[in-house]
C-alpha cells in the first residue's frame, strides 16, 4: 500500500496535467471570432433587370474583399466584387444583368474564404416600377411581384434508361409481390 502511493500520486498528477493543459492553452489563446455578419442595404429591394442601383454594406470584415452574387431562379449570378473599408463599410453601384428572370433572389456577399458574409432578400420584377400614368389594364395585380403556390416549370432532366429501368423495377416488384402472395395463400 505504501509503495503504491508515489505511483498513484504520479498518475494522478499526469492525468490532471493532461486534462488542464488543453484548457489552459484554449483559454490563453484568443477565441477565434466568427465571420462578421454584414448588413446589405438597398433603397428598394424590388429590382429591374438591367437597372443600376446603389448598394451599401456595413459590419463586414475590415478591408475584406467581397463577391456579390444574386442567387435564385437563375442560379448563382455574379454581380460585382467590392472591398470593405477600414471600418467594414462599402458603397457601390451594381448593375443587374438584362436577362435576369423575374422572381425572388438572395443578394449575397461572399467573403474571400468562401463563407457567406451577408445576405439580403430581393425581388426582381418584370414590370417597370417608375411612376407612369396608370392605364386600365395595368390596374390588375401583377402576379410576378408576389410568390406563388404553383410549382416552378422546370426543364426536368430525363433519361430513357432511368425511366425504363424504374418502370421495369416497378412491374417486377409488383409481379413478384403478387406471386409471393399467391404462393403464400396456396401453400398454407
Amino acid at each position, binding site marked *: 500500500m505504501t509503495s503504491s502511493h508515489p505511483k498513484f500520486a504520479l498518475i494522478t498528477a499526469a492525468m490532471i496535467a493532461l486534462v488542464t493543459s488543453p484548457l489552459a492553452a484554449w483559454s490563453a489563446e484568443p477565441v477565434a471570432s466568427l465571420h462578421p455578419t454584414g448588413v446589405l442595404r438597398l433603397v428598394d429591394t424590388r429590382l429591374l433587370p438591367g437597372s443600376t442601383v446603389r448598394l451599401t454594406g456595413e459590419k463586414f470584415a475590415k478591408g475584406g474583399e467581397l463577391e456579390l452574387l444574386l442567387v435564385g431562379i437563375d442560379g448563382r449570378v455574379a454581380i460585382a466584387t467590392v472591398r470593405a473599408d477600414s471600418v467594414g463599410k462599402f458603397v457601390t453601384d451594381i448593375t443587374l444583368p438584362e436577362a435576369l428572370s423575374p422572381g425572388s433572389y438572395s443578394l449575397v456577399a461572399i467573403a474571400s474564404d468562401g463563407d*457567406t458574409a451577408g445576405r439580403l432578400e430581393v425581388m426582381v420584377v418584370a414590370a417597370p416600377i417608375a411612376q407612369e400614368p396608370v392605364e386600365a389594364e395595368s390596374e390588375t395585380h401583377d402576379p410576378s411581384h408576389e*410568390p406563388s*403556390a404553383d410549382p416552378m416549370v422546370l426543364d*426536368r*432532366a430525363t433519361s430513357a434508361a432511368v425511366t425504363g429501368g424504374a418502370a421495369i423495377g416497378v412491374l417486377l416488384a409488383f409481379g413478384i*409481390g403478387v406471386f409471393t402472395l399467391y404462393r*403464400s395463400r396456396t401453400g398454407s
Partner: protein
Amino acid sequence: MEDPLAAPPDVVRSGALEERLALGALAYPVPARANRLDFMLGALTLTALTLLAVTGIILSQYYNPTPVDAHGSVRYVITNAPLVSYLRDVHVWGASAAILLVFVHLSAVFWRRGFRRPREGLWWSGVLLLALLFVLAFTGTVLRADQEAVEALAHAVAGSALAGPLGAPLQPDFTPSSPLITRLYAMHISVIPIVLVLVLALHLWLVRHLGVSASGPDRALFTHHLRPLSGFALIVVSIVGAVALVSPAGLLAPGVAGFEVTKPLWPFLWVYAAENLFGMTGMLIAPAVLFGFLAAVPVFDRRDGPTATITRAAGLALLALLVIAIVWAALAPAQQHLDM
C-alpha cells in the same frame, strides 16, 4: 460431453447461412390470424421507412443545407440528375405512404384494442413513433427552401415562440454560428432518425415478446408470416415507385418570407384547419388534442365497459374529424395565420 459453444437446440439448422445468422430463431409461433393484412400494417410502415432511409441517404449527397444554396441544390437534382430526381420523387411519395400506413396501422390496433394490458408500452412507443414521423415530414418539407418550406418554417417559429424556452432551438437567433435550416437538416438526417430507430427497437422488442394482439388458438410460424408480408411489402414499394414515375414531386420558387400563399403537405392539413378556426394557437391545440387522446387511450380503456365504449366512440369521432379537417383545409382558400 455437451459442447458449451454449440448453438441452442431451438435453432433449426437448415443451411449454411441459416445456421450462421441464426435465422431459425425466426421460426417462433405467432397467432395464425396474424397472417392477415391488418396485422402487417406496422411492417409495411417499416418498409416505407426503409425506402425513405435508402433514398434519403442518396439525396443527402446532393443537398446543400445552407439558406443560400438549399433551393438551388434541389433544383439542380431535378434539372440535371434524372436518377437522383426519381429517387427524390420516391422519397417524397414514400413519406406520404409512411404516414398513411402508420395511421391505418394505428387505427387497426385501436379498433382491436391492442393497447390493453400488457401492451400499453407497445401503444405508447407507437404513438411516439407517429410523432417522430410527423417531425420528419415537417423537417423534410422545410429543407426544400421553397415558398411552402418558408411558410412552414414561419409557422413553426411562431409556434415555438408560444412554447417559451422549449421552443428556443427552433428560433432563428438560437445561435449565430448555424442557420436554422442547417440545424433542421441535422435533425432530419441524424437526431430524429436515431431516436426513431431506438424507439422502433423497443417497439419491435415488445411485439416479439408480448406477441401481436391477435386472438384464436391456431398458431403459425413467423417465417410463414414473412411470406405474405414480403408480398405486400413489394406491392407497397411498387405503388410508391409507380406514383413517383407518373407524378414527380414539384418544387415551388425560392421562398419569400412574409407571405402565406401555400398550404402544407396533406398530413398537416388538419393542423392548418385548426389554425383557420382558432388562429396560431390552433397549431398547438390540435396536436395536443390528438396526441393527448392517443396517450390516454390505454388509461381509459382497460377492460370492457362503458368507459371502453366511450373511448372507442371518441377515437372514431376524432378520426372522422381528422379526415374532414384535411378535406376541408384542402378545399378552402389559403388563409393568413401569422397575424392571427
